[in-house]
């Protein structure tokens, strides 16, 4: 298929709109050709994952664009950076890392972006709505935008998101197009009792399983008998986008493009139907824990970043209690959500409990954990998935309540009642 460019696209490619736009359009056009696109489309927003600091190459890319005068042409939010800009010195972040990560923050901020510094941009004011064409990076944000909001983004990598933001264009491929958004696999969870479906750990556990089964296919989940909260869907999507390449899931009767099974599959039949059993969920839960020790150094929550509703849920659980002095308790969130939680009085019980909050980043994207902290616990399947390889630490997965109880006890304690055979 030949790529058709508009007059404006060609102007951008020629350099009529500046050198940064030219570089971005050049990358965009090459990628559009690689992906067999016939045209580019306008986008109404972008989310930039390239803010995550990895090393010199990513920084050189950002500073090249910035030095060429790059400016975004659509409302653009920024993902987590490599640094909690104002509190990094309270942790073990090396100053050389901080300097480089901060340069990357400055570069992306100079492009007229909105410095949200969060992996949950869908819980900010710039949340896209159903049918909007957007170009998002960050795997959990992509799956949430497509699945829960009904917005349309292809699964975009770092470095491409910013090219779309600068040009305001994206290739008309993949999940931008209605016909590519139909469910392909049917995952039936009708056999899972309501008492399990009501648990907050059900969603990350199911998500981890969904990602493994679906690989790069679009799953449609049928048989959810409650109305999950937005944060439960966020946990499911983040898990599925870690263990698999899931960029869109449907939940029949719940998500916007799946009011019925027929709608979820756009009138076709599923390629395959898989019945999810309790044994499959137990195995999925087991896989998220990488140690059998009760030792615990730190509880980490907030992957994806904590919302106000999650702060509220946690505040209720910890009210009047205190964590063990031997265990740290860390929540990662955005500046905006933390500020809202503060205004709502939700941070006082957390502080009394002994919790700490880090914003702008998370444990996976900044080297903040001191080397003596070896045993971690989390309620996030995404943290659990990446921690062993990214941080070389041991991690235990549990429900939010398991995490709180363990922090109080000073060792891992998990309520196994719902998961026993």
């Amino acid at each position, binding site marked *: 298929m030949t790529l058709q460019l508009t007059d404006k696209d060609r102007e951008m490619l020629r350099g009529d709109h500046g050198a940064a736009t030219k570089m971005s359009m050049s990358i965009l056009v090459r990628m559009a050709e*690689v992906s067999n696109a016939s045209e580019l489309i306008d986008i109404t927003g972008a989310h930039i994952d390239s803010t995550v600091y990895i090393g010199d190459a990513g920084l050189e890319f950002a500073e090249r664009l910035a030095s060429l005068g790059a400016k975004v042409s659509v409302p653009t939010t920024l993902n987590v950076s490599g640094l909690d800009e104002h509190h990094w010195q309270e942790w073990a972040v090396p100053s050389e890392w901080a300097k480089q990560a901060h340069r990357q923050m400055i570069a992306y901020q100079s492009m007229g972006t909105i410095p949200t510094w969060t992996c949950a941009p869908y819980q900010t004011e710039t949340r896209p709505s159903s049918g909007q064409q957007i170009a998002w990076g960050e795997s959990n944000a992509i799956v949430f935008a497509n699945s829960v909001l009904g917005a349309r983004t292809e*699964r975009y*990598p*770092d470095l*491409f998101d910013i090219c779309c933001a600068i040009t305001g264009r994206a290739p008309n491929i993949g999940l931008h197009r209605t016909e590519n958004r139909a469910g392909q696999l049917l995952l039936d969870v009708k056999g899972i009792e309501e008492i399990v479906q009501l648990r907050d750990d059900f969603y990350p556990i199911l998500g981890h399983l969904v990602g493994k089964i679906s690989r790069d296919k679009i799953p449609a989940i049928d048989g959810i008998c409650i109305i999950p909260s937005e944060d439960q869907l966020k946990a499911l999507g983040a898990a599925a986008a870690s263990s*698999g*390449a899931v960029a869109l899931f449907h939940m029949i009767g719940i998500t916007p493009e799946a009011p019925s099974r027929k709608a979820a599959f756009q009138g076709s039949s599923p390629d395959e139907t898989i019945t999810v059993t309790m044994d499959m969920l137990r195995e999925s839960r087991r896989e998220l824990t990488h140690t059998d020790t009760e030792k615990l150094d730190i509880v980490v929550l907030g992957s994806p970043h904590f919302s106000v509703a999650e702060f509220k849920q946690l505040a209720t659980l910890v009210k009047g209690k205190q964590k063990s002095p031997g265990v740290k308790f860390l929540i990662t969130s955005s500046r905006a959500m933390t500020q809202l939680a503060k205004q709502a009085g939700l941070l006082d019980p957390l502080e009394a409990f002994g919790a700490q909050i880090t914003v702008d980043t998370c444990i996976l994207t900044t080297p903040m954990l001191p080397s003596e902290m070896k045993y971690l616990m989390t309620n996030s399947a995404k943290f659990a998935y990446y921690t062993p390889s990214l941080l070389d630490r041991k991690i235990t997965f549990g429900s939010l309540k398991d995490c709180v109880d363990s922090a109080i006890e000073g060792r891992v304690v998990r309520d196994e009642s719902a998961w026993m055979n």
Partner: protein
Amino acid sequence: MDELTIFGKPVISGSANGLALVSSEPLSFWGGYDWKSGEITDLRHPLSGLNAKGKILAIPFTRGSSTTTAVLLEAIRAETAPSGIITTATDLFFALASVVADELYGKPFPLVAVSESDFARLQTGDQIEINDDGLITVHR
């Protein structure tokens, strides 16, 4: 020595040769590839612990993080990247790393997409040559 040829689609055209590392399991480079050494570090992945620097890496597609492209770009700059990559689908994450490596450093790497049945014929340890037209020659 046996030789077999596979006709792939040159997603990013170029030539490379090297020993093959092959797995049917997708991989995220973020949390899965140490760009400082070229080692595959995802403990759940069948190629975990092996070093892909200078090799021909064959995996069906990327999973997980959007940051895979950024990690691969670091590896290209640090000269710890695979010399070529073979996939089944047209993988945007890999393609972009090659396009940006070309833009920044003039160092693209070849990326070839093959059918699932051809992919299944590849084995770790094969000596593989990729040419500009997407032709893959396998010696074993």
